[in-house]
């Protein structure tokens, strides 16, 4: 049997994607994008938290990539309440004008997404979170408040540090970090100012003082949003290495 045929019997890139309704914060029904590998092999789940520009094409590509990696993956539409059915950029504009997503609501929505994944017949019971930019902070926030098995923070601003007056997220997570319930992987760019290297160091020190598992890497030639393939901030070397680290991290904690 040819090697390629053997491989295809072991694993496949085939997946099924769909738009589903999940129960979020306060019992609200919200939209979510779901991608699942074909087959009934038991697997972990990943909740992808979209960035401030919204529930967009690039974020859905990330959801599909996690399905390709073998996970049931879901992204809740955090702006569904403000703008159901709207284009992602219009929904983001409405949510921003209304002050952004409150932390309590975010926790409820991610909790609903995690529960949805765990209820799937293929679930092995383990769920990770990942977020980019504002979603990076929200991934940490979720892991401080929910039973999550592994969390990834991609350059989330104001996990530490002081948010500006009037910011949608009105406070950092310093007081919540001692409650972190999951191993955390942090991926940062050395040229980023939010989070700055000082803010990353503060995060490192707080987690070490509290005995938390924290894997981190800072890329010297990257700034904010280096995973964004459709933006000038994209840095291929950092993004490729980052994906390898995410794959290994989830393989360790969600497998």
């Amino acid at each position, binding site marked *: 049997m040819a090697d390629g045929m053997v491989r295809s019997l072991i694993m496949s890139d085939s997946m099924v994607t769909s738009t589903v309704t999940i129960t979020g914060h306060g019992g609200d029904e919200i939209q979510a994008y779901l991608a699942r590998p074909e087959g009934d092999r038991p697997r972990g789940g990943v909740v992808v938290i979209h960035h*401030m520009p919204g529930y967009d094409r690039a974020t859905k590509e990330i959801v599909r990539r996690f399905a390709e990696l073998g996970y049931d993956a879901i992204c809740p539409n955090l702006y569904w309440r403000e703008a159901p059915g*709207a284009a992602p950029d219009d929904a983001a*504009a409405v949510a921003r004008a209304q002050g952004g997503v409150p932390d309590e609501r975010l926790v409820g929505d991610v909790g609903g997404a995690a529960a949805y994944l765990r209820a799937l017949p293929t679930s092995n019971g383990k769920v990770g979170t990942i977020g980019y930019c504002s979603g990076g902070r929200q991934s940490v926030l979720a892991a401080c408040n929910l039973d999550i098995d592994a969390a990834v923070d991609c350059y989330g601003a104001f996990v530490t540090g002081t948010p500006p007056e009037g910011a949608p*997220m009105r406070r950092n997570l310093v007081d919540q970090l001692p409650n972190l319930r999951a191993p955390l992987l942090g991926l940062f760019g050395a040229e980023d100012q939010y989070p700055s290297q000082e803010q990353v160091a503060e995060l490192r020190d707080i987690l070490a003082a509290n005995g938390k598992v924290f894997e981190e890497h800072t890329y010297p030639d990257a700034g904010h949003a280096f995973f*964004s393939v459709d933006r000038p901030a994209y840095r291929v070397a950092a993004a490729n290495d980052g994906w390898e680290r995410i794959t290994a991290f989830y393989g360790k904690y969600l497998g």
Partner: protein
Amino acid sequence: MCTYETVCICVEGSGKGPQSWLRLTQATVYFDHPVHAMAGHTLNIDLSDPSKGPSARIALELTADSARALVAAIQQALDAVPAELTRP
């Protein structure tokens, strides 16, 4: 980086999108990642009428230099107007 600072004001006027004119009641101004402009960050302005739904919006994404030049141009144009024409 994201500053997350958002300035929101009420406005009176109209704007034109691809389909039709729109009465404008709100302007939201912030500096963040653009959706379309080829820049890491831009000064973004959403001119909208929230009562007409999320798509009732005229969006601008300008580089910081362009935004400053626009502010100066607006100021220059307003400065040239006789005061009696701009009284409410």
